[in-house]
């Protein structure tokens, strides 16, 4: 058999800019007209946008409030803890990239190169030092993973497992502030001071991580042979999916206290996390159900015929295949959850969007809505894009869709 790669495409298919243009943009008269219209539209939009961005826009509002956007009112004296927490994540990411995706130079460059690039921006000296630490952590992690991928694999997995608790612990601190011992590096920072990207990040991660087991249980519950469990699962899923997230967030703020013993108060950030987790779980359950339905009946039969119990069949045979199948959907849900966290601004939390509104209410920055919302949108877009890029890498390296 001939190797398909050695067969050259017909001459007309080979490259050349003019040929490409001709082929793709001006193939027919109607194509040409559409191309011209679209091009002028794009030109007109970008021109206006760029003119505004480089002439009239006052970006000072972003620069001056950058810290607010990143971490909200989080006290400056304790900010070092956040840098340490971030460094841990960067380290793990570098490590994982080197172990599982050695070919991804772009991702590696982003992890290592981005902090270095940021160092050259006119930040405060202390910020620059911390950025240097980030780059160092990334390089260290990458180097370790690259030189000894097999021996560090296990510890990296453990690292990811404890990453969230470590991050939250560092954010929150350990010891309560006492009057005569003011701020130490481990003083507790109450959640009402958590804000900006930090809060957005934590809401996203917590809601997604905790909704996963919950959604899984609901999906399995929906197929249960016990009617009570099935009804409960169906009822929960349909109820939650029939309600907008914002109403759930309001309910979490207003109604959660009804279910708690008198006088007990849970923190507003925690309430939002609970609300988002409960919401996300219902959608996750439906996604998992879709995955389960895609598994052929023969797989259940073969497992049962071997004497595996229903639980073991699920655990060893069905779920691994079903979850693998829906990874792209799960990533999509993760990203949309990330964007949906912006709704907590409406119930009064200071996430990225909430901070934007605070910034705009400062007298010296009144009327700079365009700049602030443009910046925030760009930020959401950038992060969403990075996540979806990573998920695509993940999908190719897991060989999804190629089998």
């Amino acid at each position: 058999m001939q190797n398909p790669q050695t067969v050259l495409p017909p001459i007309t298919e080979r490259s050349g800019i003019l040929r490409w243009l001709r082929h793709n943009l001006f193939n027919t008269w109607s194509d040409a007209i559409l191309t011209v219209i679209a091009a002028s539209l794009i030109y007109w939009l970008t021109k206006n946008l760029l003119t505004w961005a480089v002439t009239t826009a006052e970006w000072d509002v972003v620069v001056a409030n950058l810290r607010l956007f990143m971490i909200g009112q989080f006290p400056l004296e304790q900010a070092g803890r956040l840098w340490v927490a971030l460094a841990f994540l960067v380290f793990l990411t570098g490590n994982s990239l080197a172990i599982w995706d050695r070919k991804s130079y772009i991702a590696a460059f982003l992890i290592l190169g981005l902090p270095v690039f940021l160092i050259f921006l006119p930040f405060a000296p202390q910020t620059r030092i911390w950025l240097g630490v980030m780059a160092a952590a990334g390089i260290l992690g990458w180097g370790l993973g690259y030189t000894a991928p097999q021996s560090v694999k296990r510890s990296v997995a453990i690292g990811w497992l404890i990453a969230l608790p470590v991050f939250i612990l560092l954010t929150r601190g350990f010891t309560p502030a006492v009057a005569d011992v003011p701020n130490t590096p481990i003083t507790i920072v109450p959640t009402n001071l958590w804000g900006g990207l930090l809060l957005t990040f934590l809401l996203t991660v917590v809601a997604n991580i905790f909704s996963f087991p919950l959604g899984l249980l609901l999906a399995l519950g929906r197929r249960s042979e016990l009617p009570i469990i099935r009804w409960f699962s169906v009822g929960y899923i349909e109820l939650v999916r029939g309600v907008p997230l914002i109403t759930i967030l309001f309910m979490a703020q207003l109604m959660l206290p009804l279910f708690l013993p008198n006088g007990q108060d849970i923190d507003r950030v925690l309430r939002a996390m609970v609300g988002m987790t409960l919401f996300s779980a219902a959608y996750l359950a439906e996604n998992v159900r879709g995955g389960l339905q895609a598994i052929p009946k023969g797989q259940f039969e073969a497992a049962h015929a071997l004497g595996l119990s229903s639980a073991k069949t699920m655990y060893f045979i069905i779920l691994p295949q079903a979850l693998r199948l829906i990874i792209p959907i799960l990533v999509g849900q993760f990203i949309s959850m990330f964007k949906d966290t912006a709704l907590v601004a409406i119930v009064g939390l200071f996430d990225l969007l909430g901070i934007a509104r605070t910034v705009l209410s400062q007298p010296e920055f009144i009327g700079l809505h365009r700049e602030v919302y443009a910046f925030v949108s760009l930020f959401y877009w950038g992060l969403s894009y990075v996540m979806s890029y990573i998920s695509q890498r993940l999908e190719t390296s897991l060989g999804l869709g190629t089998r």
Partner: protein
Amino acid sequence: MNDTNQIIISARDVHKWYGNFHALKGINMEVNKGEVIVIFGPSGSGKSTFIRTINRLEEHQRGEILVDGIELSHDVRNIEAVRTETGMVFQQFNLFPHLTVMQNITLAPIQVRNWSKKQAEETAMQLLGRVGIPDQAHKFPGQLSGGQQQRVAIARALAMQPKIMLFDEPTSALDPEMIKEVLDVMVELAQSGMTMLVVTHEMGFARAVADRMFFFDQGQIVEGGKPDDVFNNPKEDRTKLFLSQILSH
């Protein structure tokens, strides 16, 4: 056939309905230890349905099925006990695509029989040798040919050291050149004294190793007996007609 004539499967007046459709209409069959039974008949006659009631992949609604002395009832423990003692091979192989050949074979022994991984893997290697593919242990099912996959499926079922093996048209999904390699494995298994229930239209196989064969039609056993008798002087016209059809090509 075994001289002691110890009955290992006994089905008495087994009925099965799918909704209003009467798929099994009173099947009676007794199988002795070590016997090889071939079941054949036209499509839709209930062959698969019957063989699948023996390990409870299908539930029967009337009658009684005893496997190795255990009655198949709603009791989950009984069902799992019977399934542990019976292996099944499917037309579509039904290997687990996300597990390697080795993992496919060792999963049940480790999880159900509580074997150590080492013991399970040693047995798996022996079985892979027995079915003639000792060098494929670390591939995934998708990387094997149909014939190889079916032989892995046989090894997987044998790994549980079952007393009975059920085969539901194990060669029907295979290309002609692969049928023989699977049949060879089955013949060897039959000669080793395994109790086997085989739904198949491979009449060469039936002639060579079957102790008895049963002709199914419309949910009933039309006739059964030794292969010589069934092939050479079938009693029923339906059997004659069917045999003449499948033996003609």
